[in-house]
């Protein structure tokens, strides 16, 4: 498996006390859409900043596209399209002028830059707004322009930090389609997000982060396989009396746990019929809650975040 990003014990400590990224061993294979998922403050942006050399690691090492993140950050930024979090454009300049400036910063010659700018504006659907000043752009349009600038250098790797913040649902769908198209062209994409439901379905590789650490990483299908084993049915029952007898009966059906005065029964299969028969045998039982644990990305996230 060819890796485009690989880090070892990557750590960032701010002001000697705030550990933003803690001994991260990140591995991103080529040609995937990798979702870097975690709450705000999980360390995603700091990790990204270190990958492209905008922040120096306190400890550890890493390579992006084969370049050292400490010694060869400029080469990395020449090859990696980055959409940083909280970015902005020059409001007094048009979309075309903004992109032309950024293209020239990448060392793209004027003629080639002109061609590239038109091309990327077309990709993100802003070709008709190219001569509009950016101050007239909506949030979604600015976000698309941000993606356009990341595409200017025809990058092998795209790193997009919270790319769908502020985008309307229609824009988010368009964004996902664009990501899938770019990956089909052989690019690798790292999407950092805390909005699991928005981007989860587009990712085929998952990196879960919490408090600066990577909780898990791997192909979604592998993680789901592991989680699939935990698919189950949960019944929460309140017993007004006969609690001990009830627990005894329920242990024959599944795993029993006492939680906040309730009996929580976890079963591997749908056990509604068996539970009905227990309800007929014992008086004073109330089924307070019933839920099915599905191997969705949200549940996978919750499982790693809170249960493991």
């Amino acid at each position, binding site marked *: 498996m060819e890796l485009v990003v690989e880090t070892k014990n990557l750590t960032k400590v*701010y002001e000697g006390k705030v550990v933003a990224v803690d001994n991260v061993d990140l591995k991103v294979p080529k040609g995937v859409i990798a979702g870097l998922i975690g709450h705000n403050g999980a360390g995603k*942006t*700091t990790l990204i*900043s270190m990958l*492209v050399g*905008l*922040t*120096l690691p306190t400890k550890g090492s890493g390579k992006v596209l084969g370049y050292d993140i400490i010694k060869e950050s*400029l*080469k990395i*930024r*020449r090859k990696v399209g*980055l*959409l*940083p*979090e*909280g*970015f*902005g*454009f*020059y*409001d*007094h300049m048009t979309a075309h002028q903004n992109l032309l*400036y*950024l293209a*020239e*910063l*990448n*060392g793209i010659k004027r003629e080639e830059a002109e061609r590239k700018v038109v091309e990327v504006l077309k990709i993100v659907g802003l070709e008709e707004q190219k001569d509009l000043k950016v101050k007239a752009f909506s949030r979604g349009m600015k976000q698309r322009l*941000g993606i356009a*600038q*990341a595409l200017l250098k025809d990058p092998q790797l795209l790193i997009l930090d919270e790319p769908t913040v502020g985008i309307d649902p229609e824009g988010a769908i368009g964004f996902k389609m664009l990501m899938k198209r770019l990956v089909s062209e052989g690019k690798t994409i790292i999407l950092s997000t805390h909005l699991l439901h928005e981007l989860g379905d587009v990712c085929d590789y998952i990196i879960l982060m919490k408090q600066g650490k990577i909780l898990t990483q791997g192909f979604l299908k592998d993680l789901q396989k592991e989680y699939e084993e935990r698919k189950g049915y949960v019944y929460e029952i309140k017993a007004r009396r006969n609690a001990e007898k009830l627990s005894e009966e329920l242990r024959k059906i599944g795993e029993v746990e006492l939680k906040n005065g309730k009996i929580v029964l976890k079963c591997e299969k749908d056990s509604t019929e068996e539970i009905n028969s227990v309800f007929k045998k014992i008086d004073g039982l109330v089924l307070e809650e019933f839920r099915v644990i599905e191997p969705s990305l949200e549940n996978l996230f919750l499982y790693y975040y809170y249960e493991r």
Partner: protein
Amino acid sequence: MGFTVVLKKELRDMFTSKRFIVLVVVFLVFYIAGFFYLASIGLPQIRNPIPFFLSSYGRVLSLMASLLGVAFGYDAIAGERERGTLRIVLAQPIYRDSLALGKLAAFLVLTTTSIYASTFISLGVFVAGFGGAVTDQDIIRVSLVALAAVLLSLVYYSVSLLFSVFSKKASHSAMLSLAVWILLVAVLPLIATMVAVSVAGPPPRGLRGVPQKQRAAIIKEWSRRFNQARSTVMKISPNTFFEMIVFTIVREAASQSGKTIPLYEALSSIAPSYAILAIVPLVLLPVGFIIFVRQEEK
């Protein structure tokens, strides 16, 4: 590579910015108003226009040059940081020092061209109005004053840039920069006078019975102590060094008919003032750059 791209973009932005246009308009209003005032009281014909020109124009230049520095320094970094453009620029293959140097170089071009252009245009208008001849030496004198103004604007630019590097918001940096400008240009003369009075005491009174010679000596001594204390305090302001340069060149130009102070002698006496105006940015700019280069955008 990144440096020249930033330089070109910054130059385009600076010359077309509202703040530059406002400064040009303010400058023109100042100048035209002064010219019309002189015209209203009748334009005398002057044989040697340079001392008159420099002594009036120098004051305007002192204000405009320092304002120019503040106007373009305060948001050089903080503005980019606040708008998020710093993040998008640094996402490209460019070093932070190339960005800062590109901005500085653009400011140098802006301040040099605008100060020299306005100075020589003003001189042309002045000579056309008041008459007189301008010699090669006069061109050197005027150029020296313009050079001092460029250095003065650079002093204020470096102070504002330093605030800009530390500030997250351009408004914070603008407030600090303007506070320094107001302190050095408007408040310091008042403080200097108060300090001078406290050092030299109030002006001597009750000298009616004192013989004329002795009275003159007392007043002279009080004036000496007052001026010494005042000028010592005023040396906190870079504008004072600019004014010293202008004053020396005006004095030299005024006395040139008598050939009492040759230009090279005047130059040697104002060299320390130039040095001080140059040293401040030479110290503050690297400090600002080093801090900026070492900063990390979280």
